[in-house]
């Protein structure tokens, strides 16, 4: 008997029992839809996280304090006094795989213009920093060599700060006051950055930027910077660059715990790891739905075998071999699960599209997840179909014919 005839027979009997076929498909539909949706949604979310991490600048390396351990009521100087302004050039000279490096100090102060004030977060750094994180000027100019050398009292505003303080007024050339403790400093606004929006936990729009030397020499009087932002030449050499920086500090301090050198690649892979864990977890739950769906198929196929005992008897009397009966029921269960898989694929895709749309991240249904879901549902049809089908195939024709 040709396989195509068996398939035809199987399809016919499924079509004759549409409601039941659909109900037994339901478990598979839900399972496959869940798998497709979960994978698509988490891939989309992962993609969004990766995109925004890259928005913070590509191949970034952050150099900061390692342990912050102290005695008494203060942080030990040995853990904070590590990085100097001049070190930036030394690191760059000794680490060939670094493209760029900028020292930074973070602080805060009350910013005042006329009678408007804003509590501002301050990052004091060098022009290289803005190159690395792709922060462009909307108007005005960047810090000059002279600004840095002479520790001039100039400031570039984030776009939000500019709007908050100045509203419609052009801020360039205006003086704002920054209050730190009992001291007030007057800063000349030389530029405003373009808006970049919230990127992960960072929002440059709500910050103001000073030359790092101005902060160190005038506003706070410190000899050390908080750390460095650096950039590797490429993603491939990021890890090498990290090692070079670590080696630099190891030579200096003989203690790697003091310095924390993190590459963005690590952060990216951490984000991926997190997304993968999430995927496995949700995928596991979805697989349970598939399993339950499979058991449903087995149940329905068993009922169908019992109900059609007489039909099996007739077919056997007319010359159907065991194999033919086995195939007939296997093909029925596989068709149910494959069909369910297809419906689930459609359903899951729609759900994933909706959720991605709401979440505002890219929509991703990969060929891989489709293949997995379809393959899995096919396997389930086979696996859970074998027991009922072999029961049907083993029926004794005399008993089957007289079954009421």
């Amino acid at each position, binding site marked *: *008997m040709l396989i195509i*005839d068996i398939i035809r027979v199987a399809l016919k009997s499924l079509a004759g029992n549409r409601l039941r076929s659909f109900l037994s498909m339901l478990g598979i539909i839900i399972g496959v839809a869940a798998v497709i949706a979960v994978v698509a949604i988490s891939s989309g979310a992962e993609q969004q996280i990766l995109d925004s991490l890259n928005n913070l600048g590509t191949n970034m390396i952050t150099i900061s304090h390692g342990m912050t351990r102290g005695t008494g009521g203060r942080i030990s100087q040995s853990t904070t006094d590590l990085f100097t302004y001049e070190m930036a050039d030394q690191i760059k000279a000794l680490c060939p795989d670094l493209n760029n490096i900028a020292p930074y100090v973070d602080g805060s102060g009350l910013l005042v213009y006329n009678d408007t004030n804003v509590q501002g977060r301050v990052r004091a750094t060098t022009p290289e920093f803005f190159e690395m994180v792709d922060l462009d000027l909307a108007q005005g100019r960047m810090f000059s060599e002279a600004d840095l050398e002479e520790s001039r009292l100039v400031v570039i505003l984030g776009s939000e700060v500019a709007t908050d303080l100045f509203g419609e007024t052009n801020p360039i050339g205006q003086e704002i006051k920054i209050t730190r403790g009992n001291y007030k400093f007057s800063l000349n606004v030389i530029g405003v950055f373009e808006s970049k929006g919230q990127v992960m936990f960072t929002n440059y729009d709500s910050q103001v930027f000073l030359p790092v030397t101005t902060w160190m020499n005038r506003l706070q009087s410190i000899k050390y910077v908080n750390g460095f932002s650096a950039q590797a030449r490429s993603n491939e050499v990021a890890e090498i660059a990290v090692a070079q920086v670590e080696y630099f500090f190891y030579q200096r301090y003989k203690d790697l715990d003091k310095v924390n050198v993190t590459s963005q690649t690590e952060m990216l892979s951490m984000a991926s790891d997190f997304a993968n864990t999430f995927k496995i977890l949700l995928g596991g739950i979805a697989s349970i739905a598939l399993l339950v769906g499979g058991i449903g198929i087995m149940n329905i196929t068993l009922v169908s075998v019992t109900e059609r005992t007489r039909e099996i008897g007739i077919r056997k009397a007319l010359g159907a*071999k065991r194999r033919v009966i086995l195939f007939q029921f296997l093909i029925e269960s596989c068709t149910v699960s494959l069909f369910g898989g297809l419906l689930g694929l459609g359903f899951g895709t729609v759900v994933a599209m909706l959720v991605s749309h709401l979440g505002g991240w890219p929509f991703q249904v990969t060929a891989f997840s489709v293949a997995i879901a379809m393959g899995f549902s096919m396997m389930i049809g086979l696996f859970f179909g074998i027991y009922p089908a072999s029961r049907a195939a083993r029926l004794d024709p005399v008993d089957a014919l007289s079954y009421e």
Partner: protein
Amino acid sequence: MIQLQDVSKIYQMGQVTVEALKGVSVTVEKGDFVAIMGPSGSGKSTMMNIIGCLDRPSKGMYKINGTNVEKLSDNQLAELRNKEIGFVFQQFHLLPRISLAQNVELPLIYAGVSSKERHHRAQEALELVGLSDRAHHKSNEISGGQRQRAAIARALINKPSIILADEPTGNLDTKTGEMIMSLLIDLNNLGNTIVLVTHDPEIAAYAKRVVRLRDGLINSDEVNPVPRVVGGGE
């Protein structure tokens, strides 16, 4: 030609052993029309199952066209049923969800005949039993007599050595039953071998030869000198 030699069938039902056939020998030549008669419990159903290759004898030998059934596997038995035996059942046993033509085709599907030839032969067989205009109806859309005729068409289609009819008129009224018997007689006249299993002497009277079973043994095996003719009974 079919040959039964000292055929016994023993069933084990829990603690009780039931000997349904106790050494039966019958030979049916090609072209014959034999009725196997007997009251219920006489072993005629068991005998029918053995002749139909649905079951194997416990003892003795059964040969169909020279093939000894004893040594065959389940699959070989299925093949034998497909080729050599055309079943006509009391309950018709048509599949309800498919059309008559598709029902009639079934043995050919299992024989691996191409779909084009199947359609052609099914149409021929339905024509022979006078149902060619009902080919695309389902079995629940036609009368009992028509169902039995369709079943006969199905029995015929793979040109079996014997047509094995088990109480073919049992579910039909007298008049329809007569029409079925008349069809069987026609088929016999065309050269088909027919084995008819029945408890009804009136039906058995149509056969050329009557074998009577009682308690698993052959009681009598006689040639019917004047087989009954349809419409000439009364």
